[in-house]
């Protein structure tokens, strides 16, 4: 892995350049880097499970962010009804999301696996709408938030003071990445999943139950969005439509990283998080952050396609 990256001069140049930009920023606007990295954790944590589904089940799940928000709502109601702390809700939420993933796979996605890709896109897009409208019906469109005092914790380094709670997303993203890499490279089940991703027919004839892999990988990814949903609720206010932009951003990150590359997601997220937080540091220009986001995506995809043509 490492040798392969080092062999490509473009990656070295891009890597050095980004490192230089980050160091410069650290002196000029240190909070941009801090909040950018925190944002990156959130994006990466949500995009990693999407990459897992895409790489192995080969489905673009357009309901991805909506699953995350659904988990946030489940957490919200658990906390409100039973006075649970959101972190205690983590376990039941992850289990519920795993089961929800299984049900949805069995009853919907499974039937489009052999259909043209457009059908799969329409199906998952429909799922996104069902989840959003379902949340709207049950919880109304009123934003919800739980207040936790430790969320406002801050630290001061030199002359800059910044919120530290956001680093929890980085912690989550790192744990999810490490967990997934371990699962895919070291466990028998994970190796079977990689085999299925590369050649389902080849996997069948050597004795792998491909349908079982599909359903478990999909449910695992949905359970991971559950973890991110719980964390999301702890620091942000939620409303039914909040998931949509995370679906889009995850999709773009996956495209930037190159289909199926998990570590690539982390680098792409860092670039994106810092770029966004840089724009937002200028008063009144916050609205531009989405434009920057899509401009970056277009640039990366263009560069990649030019490289591909050579």
């Amino acid at each position, binding site marked *: 892995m490492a040798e392969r990256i080092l062999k490509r001069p473009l990656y070295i140049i891009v890597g050095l350049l980004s490192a230089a930009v980050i160091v410069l920023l650290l002196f000029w606007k240190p909070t941009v880097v801090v909040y950018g990295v925190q944002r990156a954790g959130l994006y990466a944590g949500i995009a990693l499970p999407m990459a897992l589904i895409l790489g192995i089940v080969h489905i673009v799940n357009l309901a991805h962010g909506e699953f995350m928000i659904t988990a946030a709502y489940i957490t919200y109601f658990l906390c409100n009804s039973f006075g649970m702390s959101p972190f205690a809700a983590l376990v039941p939420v992850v289990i519920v999301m795993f089961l929800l993933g299984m049900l949805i796979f069995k009853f919907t996605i499974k039937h489009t696996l052999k259909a043209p890709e457009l059908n799969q896109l329409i199906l998952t897009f429909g799922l996104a709408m069902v989840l959003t409208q379902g949340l709207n019906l049950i919880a109304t469109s009123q934003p919800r938030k739980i207040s936790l005092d430790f969320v406002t914790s801050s630290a001061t380094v030199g002359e800059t003071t910044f919120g530290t709670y956001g680093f929890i997303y980085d912690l989550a993203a790192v744990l999810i990445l490490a967990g997934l890499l371990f699962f895919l490279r070291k466990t028998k089940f994970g190796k079977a999943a990689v*085999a299925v991703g590369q*050649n389902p027919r*080849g996997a069948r004839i050597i004795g792998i139950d491909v349908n079982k892999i599909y359903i478990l990988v999909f449910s695992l990814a949905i359970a991971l969005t559950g973890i991110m949903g719980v964390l999301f609720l702890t620091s942000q206010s939620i409303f039914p439509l909040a998931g949509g932009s995370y679906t889009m951003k995850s999709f773009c990150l996956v495209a930037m990283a190159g289909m199926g590359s998990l570590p690539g997601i982390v680098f792409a997220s860092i670039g994106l998080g810092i770029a966004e937080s840089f724009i937002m540091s200028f008063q009144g220009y916050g609205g531009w952050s989405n434009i920057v986001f899509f401009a970056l995506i277009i640039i990366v995809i263009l560069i990649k396609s030019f490289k591909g043509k050579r």
Partner: protein
Amino acid sequence: MLEINGIDCYYGKLHVLRNLSFKIGDEAVGLFGPNGAGKTTLINAIISLIKPAAGDIIFDGENITTSETHTIAKKGIALVPQERELFPEMTVYENLELGAAFIPHVKNRTAERLEFVYNFFPVLKEREKQHAGTMSGGQQRMLAIGRALMADPKLLILDEPSLGLQPSIVSELFEKLAEMKKHISVLVTEQNVRESLKSVDRGYVLENGEIALEDTAENLKSNPHVIKAYLGI
């Protein structure tokens, strides 16, 4: 060992196999026929990659007609597909390892099977760390055969194994098959009828989805139809 009773297979409306029956005992059997005759379809039906519309398939006394492909593999049928079906972004070693990992009777004997396969194809050991997708066509064919052998099958099915292999390796392959058939049953389809008749015990000729001819290898060699259509004399 394997018994096929009157199966019919369709792709949509295209009737590919017609009321076809055949048998493999403890022996090596060749399956010959022109392009499009239905050889690959028959193999796919055996391992349930397509479901026959009628008839049944018995393996070791057990009806496997409706079993799933992965359970059939676990019961001891290994396939070397015409299209190889390797895992291109995995190394040679990983491909081989997976060949044994999900088969109950060999999953704890990976090292032993690996040694067997490396003995068979030394080039695979040399290329252990190379990605399967970057190997040449012939090397990939050897890897596909190696992966199937990792499963130590009771029945080994090879769909056009000589495709893309250099002649010296082809004859070596058939010598090895002849040796292997002492321990396992073999079903092989081939365009290279001359070579494969040397190593099989019996052969079937499949034409338009029906068995046109069935005989021992010796008799097929002297059969006028086979000579004219397949041995090209």
